[in-house]
C-alpha cells in the first residue's frame, strides 16, 4: 500500500506522524515540534493549493506541498 502523507489528509482531518521521507528536512521539522506520534491536523490550503496550513504541537505551521509530502502518517 502507498504510504500516506500529510497531503493525503482532507481539510479538517488529523493524522498521527509516523516518520519522515526527507533526511535533511526532517531535522528541521523535528525541531519545529513535528515528532513521530504527534497529532497533525490539516487546516486549509492557500488559495492556489500550495502551501498548506497544519496544526501541530499547539500552533499553526505552513508547509509547502513538497515539504508536507515528506511527513508520513499512520
Amino acid at each position, binding site marked *: 500500500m502507498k504510504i500516506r502523507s500529510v497531503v493525503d489528509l482532507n481539510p479538517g482531518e488529523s493524522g498521527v506522524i509516523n516518520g519522515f521521507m526527507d533526511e535533511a528536512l526532517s531535522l528541521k521539522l523535528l525541531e519545529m515540534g513535528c515528532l513521530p506520534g504527534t497529532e497533525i491536523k490539516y487546516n486549509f490550503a492557500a488559495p492556489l493549493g500550495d502551501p498548506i496550513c497544519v496544526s501541530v504541537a499547539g500552533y499553526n505551521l505552513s508547509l509547502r506541498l513538497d*515539504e508536507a509530502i515528506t511527513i508520513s502518517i499512520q
Partner: protein
Amino acid sequence: MASGKIQKIALVGNPNSGKSSLFNHLTGLNQKIGNFPGVTVDKKTGFCQLTKEVRAEIIDLPGTYSIYPNSTDEKIVFDILGNRSNPLHPDAVVVIVDASNFKRNLLLFTQIRDLNIPAVLALNMMDIVEKTGHSIDADVLAERLQVPIVPMRARRGIGVDKLKEVLAGIKPNGAVRPIFDARLHCGAAIDDVKKNFQIEEDYVAYQMLQQYSINDSISDRDKLVLGEIAIKHDFKRDEVRRKETLERYAAINHVIDSAVKEDASYLPKEWTSKLDSIFTHKIWGYAIFLFILFLIFQSIFAWATVPMDFIDLTFSELSVALKDMLPAGALTNLITEGVIPGIGGIVIFIPQIAILFAFISVLEETGYMSRVVFLMDKIMRKFGLNGKSVVPLISGVACAIPAIMATRTIENWKERLITIFVTPFMSCSARLPVYTILIALIIPDEPVLGILNLQGLALMGMYLLGFLAAILSAALMKLILKTKERSFLVMELPTYKVPRWKNVGMTMFEKSKTFVFEAGKVILAISIVLWVLASYGPGDEIEMAEQRITQQYDLSQLSDVEFENKVNAYRLEHSYAGIFGKAIEPAIRPLGYDWKIGIAIITSFAAREVFVGTMATIYSIGGVEDESTIKSRMRNEINPDTGGPRYTFAAGFSLLVFYAFAMQCMSTLAIVYRETKGWKWPILQFVYMTAVAYLSALFVFQVFK
C-alpha cells in the same frame, strides 16, 4: 557579580516569542544597531540599569527555533553563545519563552542550558496561558529545569523589574546534569574536540562537531581538525542530531507533565482560525491584500508629500538664508549648493521610510505578514523569489531604499539576493516626474474608449514595464545563481495579535536613523562630488561665462533672469559634467540623445529626480516649478542633424525606457552595498541594469526612428 563591571546579557528566543518587546522594555531608546563582525546580520544592543549598582549591556540575538541554524542570522546564536573567546560572549542569557506555545519554545531553552551559561527563563504570555484555562507551575518548572524563572507579560512590561533583579544577582553555573548527554552518543569524539580546543563543556564541543562545516566563524584550520575528528570517530551528524531532538522533547514532555495543567475543554485560537478563513480566502484573501497595498501606496504617495514638501522647502530656504549670511566664495557655494541640498536629499526620504516601515511593522506585529507570504509563495517561487519577496517588491514602487531594507525577513540568501537585485526595476516615485514630462512630450493627450486617457495609459504601461523587468530578471537569476542553501517554507503562522504601538514607533525610529546615518553618508558624498563636477571646469571658461554671454547676445534684448539663465547654461556646458556629457555623446547618439541629454543622464546617476532640474538648467530656464515651460522648450529643441524636433516619438520613448530600467540612484547602490556587505552586488546590479536600459533604449530608438 562585582559592581562597577558591566554585565553582558544576551537575549534569545523563538520568533514571535515577544523578544523585541522585552528588549525594548529593558533598553528603551538606549539602543544601537551595528553589525556583527563579518556577517550580514544586524546587531541590536542597548544598555540597561539592572540595579543602582549594576549596569548591563543587552545583546538582542536573532530569533531562532533551535541552536542549529537555518539562516545566516541564526548562525550568530551559536557563534556568540558557544565561543567563550568571542568578545560578545555573554555573562548570562535570558531565554524568552512563549508560554502559550510552551513545548516547542522549550527546545531552544534546553539547548542553551546545556551550553552551561548562566540562564534565566522568561516565561512570556502567561496571561494567554491563564485565559485558555491552562496553568504553569513556575516553581515546579524552576526546580525541574534548575533555572530561575520569571513569569512575565513582555508586551505590557509586567515582570521586567523582577527579571532585572534576578539578572543582577545571577551567579556562574556549577556543574549541572545536561538535559541531553551528548557524551552517551559520541563521547570519544567530544573528548578529542575538548582536548584540541581547550573546551570545558561537552555540549559546546559536540555543537562544534555538528556545525563546523556550516559555521563561518570557525577558521579553516580548525575546520580541518574537526573534520578529521569527525571521520576518526565516525561521527554520524544527522543521526545524533535527530536523537538529540527526540531526547530533548522527551525530557520536555516529562517536565510539562508535572508543571503544566491543561484544560482540554478550551477551544484554542478561535479568533485566529476565524480570521484565517477570511484573510486566506480564495477571493477575500486577495481582495484584502490588494486593499492593504492600495492603502500603503496611497499613504506613501499622498501623505508623505506634505512632510516631504515641507522638508524640501526648509532646506532650500536654509540654502538661500545661508547664502545671504555667509561671505561669498567657493566654500559658501559648496555649503549652500552642495552640502545643504545633499543633506536635504537624505532627509527628504525619511517620511516615506517611516510610513512604509510603520505599515510593515504593523503587518508583522499582527501576524498578517505571514499570511501574505502564505498567499503569494506559490506565484513568487516560479520566479526564483519567495513569498516573502512580495513586500519589498511592492515597497519598491515608492522607493527602492526602504524596500531593500525590508528584504531582511527573507531567510534564504539566494532568494533575498534576487529580491534585492530586481527591486530597483520597480518604478519608484523618483521616476514619476521624468515619466510625466516625457510622456507629455511624445504622447498626445487623447481620450481612449471614452473614459481612459492615452497619457495615463502610457504611464501605467511604464509601471507595468518595470514590474515585468523585475520578474523576468528574477527568473533569469534563478537560472544563474547556484546555492547549497535550501529554500524552506516551514514557517510558523502565528496567532493574530493587536500591534504593540510602542514597537511600531521604535521600528520607524530605528529604520529612519539607520538610513540617515548609513546610506546618508554616501548620498552626501556623491552630491558634493556632483556639485563640484557641475560647478568647475578646465581652463577659465567658467569664470568667463558672463563675458562670453555679453559678447554673444545683445544685452538690451535680455532681461536679468534671461541673462543669468544663459550664463548658467554656458557654465554647465563648460563644466566637467558638460565635458563628460559631450564625451559620452557618441555612445548615446544611437539612442537618439545629444550631449545635453547626456549631462542629464550623468547627473541622474546620483538620483533620477535630478533629470528635470538638469533639463531646466541646460535649456536655461529659471525655476523648476513651471514644468510646462521646460516642456515647450524641449518641444522646440531642434536636432541640427535632421532639422526636425529633438524629442521625436522615438527619442522620447527611448529615453523613457532608459529611465525605467537604468540604475540611476546612488542611494540604492549604497543600501545594496550595506545589505550585501560588499561592492560585488551593487556593481553587478549597476552594470546589468544599465546594460538592459541601454540595449532596450537602442532597440526602441532604432525600431521607431
